[in-house]
């Protein structure tokens, strides 16, 4: 378990947070200037904050009230930066083993990240995606008690990002290291995170499980109305005509493409603006995905929009509709409705479960 209490001031920016992170991936999400990177650097020991208490498991890494501040090399925290930061004068193998001491885990990590064929190469000859994977492997091989990923995908283009994401999922599922993941991309949060800490202006605006926070209407102002939307978990039922049928708690959902083998666990991201609310089961509609649901609450915003929180099975959905429709439909909490999903994006959670 990781406990982070920090307060720091520079210029007119004030950071003041108290975060407890468990196993899995804890996502620190927020706009730039929210203080995410300051937190990551302070936990890693790279930036000393005015006040700090950092405890990882039983070990206290920093306690400024007792003038304790462990140097980065004493913390056993792996750090993956936005840039790979590979040592140019060492081979890939030399880079991977730099913090390892011995090479007992080299083969396993190299396999996990598909970098075994690169071992004799030099960093200068690697593609951006390869270098990013080597950087991940290097941090893992230093046998850290915590892995900090400071916007590891922010410098990559969309294609390379899509290449690396599955590897991050492998690490989450198989590396057995808690991770602190800094990002300003919600798709990464929805796809990888277990816990989400929303940061705004140096403060924790919201925190909890990714699922709860993403479907929390109060978190929407921080996330931005366009990025609002729930995260559902389900599993693959079957593949038909290039589509995949998934079962979520509220019913069955079709998604395009082949998203993993039967029974594979899948995370679905359903954006609030892609959900239409109907009071009757719609007929003759091209949308495939209609889930029966119950209205939980209604939230009128400042603009023309409103948010409707729906309960579908054990999951929550967010729907963004206009206030005008809200009035015309005279929706009220408890009403039985249908959530019509226009599009659904999919991220497999453990497509790689068969690897070990």
């Amino acid at each position: 378990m990781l406990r982070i209490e920090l307060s720091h001031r520079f210029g007119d920016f004030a950071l003041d947070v108290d975060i407890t992170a468990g196993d899995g991936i804890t996502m620190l999400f927020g706009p730039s200037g929210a203080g995410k990177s300051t937190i990551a650097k302070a936990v890693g020991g790279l930036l000393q904050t005015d006040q700090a208490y950092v405890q990882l498991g039983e070990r206290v890494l920093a306690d400024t009230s007792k003038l304790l501040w462990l140097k980065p090399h004493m913390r056993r925290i792996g750090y993956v930066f936005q840039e790979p930061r590979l040592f140019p004068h060492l081979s890939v193998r030399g880079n991977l083993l730099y913090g390892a001491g011995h090479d007992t885990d080299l083969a396993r990590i190299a396999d996990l990240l598909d970098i075994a064929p690169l071992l004799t190469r030099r960093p200068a000859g690697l593609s951006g995606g390869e270098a990013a994977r080597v950087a991940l492997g290097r941090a893992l091989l230093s046998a850290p008690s915590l892995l900090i990923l400071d916007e590891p995908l922010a410098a990559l283009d969309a294609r390379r990002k899509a290449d690396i994401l599955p590897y991050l999922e492998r690490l989450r599922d198989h590396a057995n290291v808690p991770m602190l993941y800094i990002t300003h991309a919600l798709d990464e949060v929805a796809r990888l995170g277990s816990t989400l800490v929303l940061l705004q202006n140096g403060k924790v605006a919201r925190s909890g499980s990714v699922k709860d926070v993403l479907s929390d209407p109060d978190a929407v102002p921080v996330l931005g109305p366009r990025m609002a939307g729930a995260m559902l978990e389900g599993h693959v039922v079957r593949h038909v005509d290039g589509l995949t049928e998934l079962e979520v708690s509220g019913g069955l959902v079709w998604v395009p493409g082949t998203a993993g083998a039967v029974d594979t666990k899948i995370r679905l991201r359903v954006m609030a603006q892609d959900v239409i609310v109907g009071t009757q089961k719609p007929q003759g509609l091209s949308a495939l995905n209609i889930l029966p649901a119950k209205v939980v609450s209604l939230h009128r915003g400042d603009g023309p929009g409103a948010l409707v929180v729906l309960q579908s099975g054990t999951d929550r959905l967010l729907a963004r509709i206009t206030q005008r429709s809200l009035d015309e439909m005279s929706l009220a909490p408890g009403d039985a409705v249908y959530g019509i999903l226009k599009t659904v994006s999919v991220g497999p959670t453990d497509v790689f479960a068969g690897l070990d």
Partner: protein
Amino acid sequence: MINLPPEGWDALWLSLRVAGLSTLLSLPVALGVAVLLARGRFWGRGILNGLVHLPLVLPPVVTGYLLLIALGRTAPIGVFLEETFGLVLAFRWTGAVLAAAVMSFPLTVRAIWLALEAVEPGLEEAAATLGASPARVFATVTLPLIAPGVLAGAVIGFAKAMGEFGATITFVSNIPGETQTVPSAIYSFLQVPGGEATVWGLVALAVGVALGALLLAELLSRRVAARIAGRA
């Protein structure tokens, strides 16, 4: 072949010895000072910086005279060195080594300093997060990356030491076979009627050594740079 009187060959041999030894001895110190100046934030950093650069801005004769005052056989430090280590500097070839080292020191420090500033700090940070102590980070990341700069500093220091004249002649005079380096010898033979042939020989040798050192340095630094960049 170049035809030189024995004093000429003595001078060349002495210059090579003096320059080689001064480079070898001053390089580790220059490395340490460059690291302090480039990375350190301590009281007196400005003073250290000024001291290191003083020989670059002072007239060489002044530097030589100051060395003589400080380290002459009657000066306290000179007496101490002679009594404790049996080391005499003034008017000895050992003093020529010191004069050459002092005069070339700022050039060597500057070359290494530049190389240090070019090292991406992120790499050292990354090494620390991988559990490397500051000493290990320096030995395994910083030093390999600045190797071309250290090499360049050594070469420019060696060249400066080969050519050093003013401080040397003031501190250790111009004694054939003891303190007469190539520049002092050229100066002496210029004073002697009919010495031009010897002067030309020495000039040719000086040019040859300087060019040779440059070529060697170029070759080495290319290889080192290629190794660092992962092209070899």
